[in-house]
């Protein structure tokens, strides 16, 4: 069963286990995917990472340098089937975390630039049909990713998706979603489920049978 591994560095990263537990529970309730609703915190060079093929990196500040061993393991993890969702918790287009993430991904995949995903990318239709990817904020409303083969094993949001999912111990949402409020949070939950389904099914929703049928029914163009 799938769970979430939160990558933790010495600084700059944020741990939001409740957000991921919420996402996993929502996924279990909404889809046929069997999840283990838990989040574990791991360093990027921890070999245990290969027991958790869905990982997240959430941050709000500049990241410290990553060791060669950690970089090598991350490349191996992402090249052999692992998935990493990177979430900028600041919502700031020019955050230190954003600079650090772009630099890190550039080191990991120097020939595979981080690029904006096209509007018909499978992540936007892996379960829900999503037109605007949003999180706690709706500043960018796009996802970016690094492509390896036919899949993007790294997907990056700058709209603080985990902030929209995060809850306090009493079950209340930790932050308000702006500017869209609860409807925006609902879209954020749908995006989170799509990310999980995309991590499992990759480009399945681009198979001919699905595309043809969805077009026939007018659900996509």
């Amino acid at each position, binding site marked *: 069963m799938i769970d979430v591994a939160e990558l933790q560095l010495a600084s700059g990263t944020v741990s939001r286990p409740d957000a991921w537990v919420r996402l996993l529970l929502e996924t279990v309730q909404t889809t046929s995917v069997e999840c283990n609703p838990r989040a574990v915190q791991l360093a990027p060079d921890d070999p245990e990472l290969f027991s958790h093929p869905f990982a997240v990196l959430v941050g709000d500040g500049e990241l410290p340098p990553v060791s060669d061993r950690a970089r090598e393991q991350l490349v191996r993890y992402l090249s052999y089937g692992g998935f990493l969702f990177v979430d900028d918790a600041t919502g700031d287009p020019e955050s230190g975390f954003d600079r650090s993430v772009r630099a890190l991904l550039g080191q990991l995949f120097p020939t595979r630039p981080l690029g904006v995903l096209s509007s018909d990318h499978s992540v936007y239709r*892996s379960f829900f049909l999503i037109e605007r990817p949003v999180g706690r904020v709706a500043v960018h409303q796009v996802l970016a990713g690094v492509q390896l083969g036919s899949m993007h094993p790294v997907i990056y949001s700058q709209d603080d998706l985990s902030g929209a999912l995060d809850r306090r111990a009493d079950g209340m949402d930790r932050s308000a979603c702006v500017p869209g409020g609860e409807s925006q949070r609902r879209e954020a939950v749908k995006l989170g489920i799509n990310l999980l389904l995309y991590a499992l099914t990759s480009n*399945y929703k681009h198979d001919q049978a699905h595309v043809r049928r969805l077009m026939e029914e007018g659900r996509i163009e």
Partner: protein
Amino acid sequence: MMAWLTSGGNFAGGHLVWSGEAWVLATVATLVVIALGLATRPTPLAGRLGELAALALAGLGLVLLAARPTWLAEGERTEPGRVVVLVDASRSMGVTEPAGQTRLALAREVLARLPDAERFHFGGDLRPGEALTADLGATDIAGALQALSRRYAGEALAGIVLVTDGIDRGGLLRIEADGRRRLDPSALPELPGPLTVVQIGEDRAVPDVAVVDVRAGAFAFLRAPFTIEVDVVRTAVDLAATTVTLTRNGQAAGTRSAAFDQLGRGRVSFPVTPDAPGRFIYEVSVPAPPDDAVPGNNSMSRAIRVVRDRVRVLQVCGSPSMDQKFLRLFLKEDPGVDLVSFFILRTMADMGSDYAPQELSLIEFPYRRLFADDLATFDLVILQNFDHEPYFERDSDRLLENLAEYVKNGGALAFLGGDRSFDLGEYAGTPLAEVLPIELGIPGESVDPAPFAPTLTAAGARHPLTRLAADGAENQALWGRLPVLDGTNLSLGPADDAAVLLAHPSLTTGGGPLPILAVRQVGLGRTMALSVDSSWRWSFAEASTGGGNQAYLRFWKSAMRWLVGDPDDQAVTIEVARENVEPGEVQKAVVRVRDAGFAPLPGATVIGEVLGPRGRTPLSLPTDGQGLATIEVPTAERGAHRIKVRAVSAGGLQLGGAETVYAVVTRDPELDRIAPDSEALQALATATAGLYIAPGTWQAPLYDDAAARVVRERRESPLWSAPLLGVFVAAMASLGWWWRRRGGRR
């Protein structure tokens, strides 16, 4: 002088040559000189000149004999030009004309009119002498004339008489763009004499319906439609149409009606979609009318090899998971796989969430189409943690029965574990359970969640499916190093005729280890059951160690190849040199025998038989150092032939079997069209300024009076063997001896 010496002869002109061996001549001359020297002793020479002169002449005669003088006379004379007859001896000349004589017999009547002519016969080549039978093929009239021209290069012939029915396979006439046939002048040589063409056989006088061509490539692709085109002709038969029947390996595959046009030609097409790989004999036939002159040309066979272009795989998964993800990635990245995936993303239990259908990207699961209409289009079906009941509902039995029949008819099924599969998917007692390699219906708990490392069984160590390395010890070590799995579905054990390749290290069932990976041959198809949903760890966790994911890729690659049972991917394969051979040729088939690791296996015994239209021929032979056994089969009988073999290792292990088919063509190209071709013969006569003699008529062939040939003569007269020379030597020797005795000497 010469005449006197050689007792007569005509030696007008000529010259003398000495043909004796030098050493013989020298020896004789030396002996003569020594003898003469001895003869001069002991008395003085005075008064002995006569004696010595006679002996010297005898000695000279002996030296002449040793020098072997020969008189060589050369001359030439002129004779009238020759007449040459070329008789067509191809099989079409064996056709019986309405009058009751074969065409060859009619040709002999022509020969009887030309008793002094030199005789040749031809089919594909020119042969001296008279034809005894009409049994040659590939008639090539232009080729025969070219061979004749080369043979008589530099000599003018008084006449060339060509006796034939005109049915030519050598391209004498070329079909032009306007559809008309014209003679190809470049095919004809400059003839050494005037040509007379004698046609044998009346045009269109012989009733016949024939299949003259079946056009289909030697290869076809599995499930890809192709067309078999058939040409038929009729001559001297009053038929508007005929029924053309197509069979595949003797089984009816369709009929079509072919209408004849004004020229008696008909054409029909059969659309064919092969549903299995391998070699197949497609035979086309038309019914023979009661007076059909050549029933042998009423059918024609073609052997066609059907190959896969891509393996078509259906992956159905009951719940997206890492196991499903890794298997899809493997299948999707293989260019040899055409993958159709269907994943259940939402079940009835998930319907409580308040999302409207239009928010979802889900489509209806087309289970009826997949498991009824389109099932036969797949080479391999993978049921991955899939529970049938929620989706198949009332159709469950029918669709699972379809799946079981699909397997029995040659399909492949991979049945993978998980929390919705095996007994958790309620497959026990269903039609599908009957074809699985494990027994279902375990009471109580049907999963064991404890992580474990499966062990390779003895069968697994030999089986190609579980060969991660060619070397047995290395293979064992590789399996031992793989990461542990997450837990397993339980079962009652393997089915009766299944093989267990991986087993649980500690759990048992039915007195044996719990099967983790089991395989089974069911009818023509194969099934595999893997009781875990964590084989992906062989890829991902293995990659974490720096070892890459080769073990996972090899395992699934081997599994897929074994399941689909590709004919070229078996331990024993057989390959024929040609799919279609003619009667009289030797068909060669090569059997390749490999061990479980697909290494060539020398010293194995190949046992089998060749099944032909008239019975079976057993065969048994060993494999050579490369694991190959070559079978050579004479092909006397026309029709479809099947070679079936099985191989046994030197240790008695059954290695498997293979079979193939080939066709000994039931059609004789010489008998495709048997109507004489007067158009070709008249064109030939016109092109060569020759004479055409129609069938049933006769006139003197063209004869060139001016044609002459110079006969060169060379005559050798050996003087040394002339009788008078011997007499002369004897007389001189006797005279000398008499003189000597008369002088009182001894």
